[in-house]
């Protein structure tokens, strides 16, 4: 039986589960916050999408209804990511913002941050231990 691939992470000071992802185009691992209420694959910003080599098609967008019932529009981009020993071709959502807004949003952040949805967790086991503040994602098939 082949060894199972696992990605590990933790729970931050705001109690948000995250994993660290090695992503093409970034020297340091990217922090991916896990959002089990988001059934897409990834939410990134335009800079991150470009660094990852994703093709941002500005004529393709999605109108998503958030949990707050607010409607928000994202651009769509496509590309491959390294994911648990595989390289799936995915569509990611791109935050629509200006460069000034991005700089303001990132002002106090040290790492690049993305949102990871459940589309990439299909066939995986996700374990979040809020007591030990640990997270693991293991591929099961």
């Amino acid at each position, binding site marked *: 039986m082949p060894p199972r691939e696992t990605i590990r992470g933790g729970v931050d000071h705001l109690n948000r589960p995250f994993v660290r992802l090695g992503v093409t185009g970034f020297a340091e691992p990217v922090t991916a916050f896990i959002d089990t209420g988001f*059934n*897409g*694959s990834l939410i990134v910003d335009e800079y991150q999408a470009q660094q990852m080599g994703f093709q941002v*098609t500005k*004529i*393709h*967008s*999605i*109108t*998503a*209804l958030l*949990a707050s*019932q607010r*409607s928000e529009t994202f651009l*769509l981009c*496509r590309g491959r990511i390294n994911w648990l020993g595989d390289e799936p*071709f*995915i*569509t990611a*959502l791109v935050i629509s913002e200006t460069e000034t807004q991005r700089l303001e949003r990132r002002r106090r952040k040290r790492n690049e941050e993305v949102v990871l949805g459940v*589309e990439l967790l299909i066939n995986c086991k996700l374990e979040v231990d809020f007591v030990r503040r640990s997270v693991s994602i293991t591929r099961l098939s």
Partner: protein
Amino acid sequence: MAQERLAQELKALLLRLNQPQGNGGEGTFQPFAEADLSKLLSLVAKGLEPRHAGNYAMINSINGDYVVGPTISEVHTRFIDAFGLEAPGLCLRVGASPFAAA
């Protein structure tokens, strides 16, 4: 009957939205205004809801044709396979939000 009226409304809206404007010449695509976009999406969503609730639809904003799929990645891939990378498209989830019920 309701479906017929919906189809007529959609057709009329698309015709109006795709009218060439300014110096663009015949057939030049003009981006939708935000209000028009919302109306178009809501019309499509209403028409798709009986059969495709919970899925995603991506509509070709030039001709109103659409594809449906269970995930954003899948519907986006189907859209590009069907209409090409250059076709402008809008994606939406069909049906009420899972958070809408109390």
